[in-house]
């Protein structure tokens, strides 16, 4: 039986476009109340994955269940519970903001007119302006009103902050926090702005070329990743270090003049002990930010 706390369940989802593998055997659960961040380079599969949640793609292999339903078979039931915003929201250019809000409200029985009007005030939107007259930031704000005003159970954002100024990005983050502060509401969002993802997400998936590179709680991700810099000595070379510490969670190792920079995922004390036991001198040690982790893991995957 479906666990009612699981909003989204993806099992072994794979997708190809011709020869190109877009998603390869993705499995994950998102629970009620989570802020689930999806990160990855352009072309990593973030948008393809999100389109499966919206029922825009049929699963070629594996399955997608949102609120226990197949989004392709029951689009109206699934979409009624989702507030969606993409990087370039496709809004009808000829409508005024007011007309678009009224038009959209007709699709949602739960539409909260008062909340919609509060949001347009907060965002200082001029409701009689045509969409075609709005800046990119104002269009994003209109998209946010439409995504939030029916108080959806799931806020689904695909690269919402791309190319927007800090004030609009702040509004988007604030919408995420407001949504999750409401009991039981869930947020899934993809972004390449890793600092923002680190601040607001409590769970993280890192995609690389359609595969899961990391899937864990944000706390586990941040607490388990370390960078140790060790001094070069006569017995150390890059290849040998990689082999020696692979079993301790070493995922990237580069030489930087007369030092080696080693990035690990694992227990800090065990790692440090394994290094000092090998008579290597640790010069510095620090935890990695999400940005560091992303760059280092991507480098390692590409064999840079």
């Amino acid at each position, binding site marked *: 039986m479906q666990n009612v706390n699981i909003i989204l369940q993806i099992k072994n989802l794979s997708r190809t476009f011709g020869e190109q593998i877009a998603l390869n055997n993705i499995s994950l659960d998102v629970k009620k109340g989570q802020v689930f961040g999806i990160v990855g380079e352009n072309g990593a599969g973030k948008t393809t994955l999100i389109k499966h949640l919206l029922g825009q793609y049929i699963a070629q292999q594996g399955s997608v269940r949102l609120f226990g339903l197949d989004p392709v078979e029951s689009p109206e039931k699934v979409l009624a519970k989702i507030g969606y915003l993409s990087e370039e929201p496709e809004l009808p250019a000829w409508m005024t903001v007011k007309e678009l809000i009224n038009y959209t409200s007709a699709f949602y029985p739960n539409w909260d007119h008062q909340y919609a009007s509060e949001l347009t005030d907060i965002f200082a939107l001029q409701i009689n302006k045509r969409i075609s007259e709005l800046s990119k930031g104002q269009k994003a704000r209109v998209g946010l009103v439409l995504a939030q005003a029916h108080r959806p159970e799931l806020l689904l954002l695909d690269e919402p902050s791309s190319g927007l100024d800090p004030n609009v990005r702040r509004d988007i983050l604030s919408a995420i926090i407001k949504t999750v502060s409401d009991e039981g509401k869930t947020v899934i969002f993809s972004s390449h702005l890793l600092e923002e993802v680190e601040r607001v997400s409590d769970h993280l998936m890192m995609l690389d070329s359609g595969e899961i590179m990391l899937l864990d709680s944000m706390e586990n991700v941040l607490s388990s990743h370390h960078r140790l810099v060790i001094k070069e000595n006569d017995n150390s070379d890059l290849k040998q270090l990689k082999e020696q510490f692979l079993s301790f969670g070493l995922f990237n190792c580069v030489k930087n003049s007369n030092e080696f920079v080693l990035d690990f995922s694992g227990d800090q004390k065990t790692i440090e002990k394994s290094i000092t036991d090998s008579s290597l001198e640790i010069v510095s040690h620090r935890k990695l*930010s999400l940005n560091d982790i992303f760059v280092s893991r991507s480098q390692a995957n590409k064999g840079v």
Partner: protein
Amino acid sequence: MDIHLNQNDGVPVYLQIINQVKHLVSSKRLVTDQELPAIRVLAEQILVNPNTVARAYRELEIAGWLYKKRGAGTFVSGKASPLSDSERNRIIDEKIKGLLAEARQMDISITSLINRLKELSLKK
């Protein structure tokens, strides 16, 4: 309450909130029985997940820095022991490290930095 987050030093966000609340209490910028912002309000102000703020408040409450009133909010207890020497050193060390890094980038020597510090401390 002014909380400033630094995401580049690898200190988890909930710990940064804890450290800064302790700092604000120790420097009397937050006084006994003063109410702290609600979890959701602070989360929206500093743009972090509400669970992160909740965790920081919970740990500060367990450590005796804050107390909760049912149906009211979270307040400064005034009962927490002042910061230990090691904790004070840790906070000031963090700031000094940042200062040293900036001085290095601008090619300012340690001696000129110390002299500058002395000069500034003498200015009222």
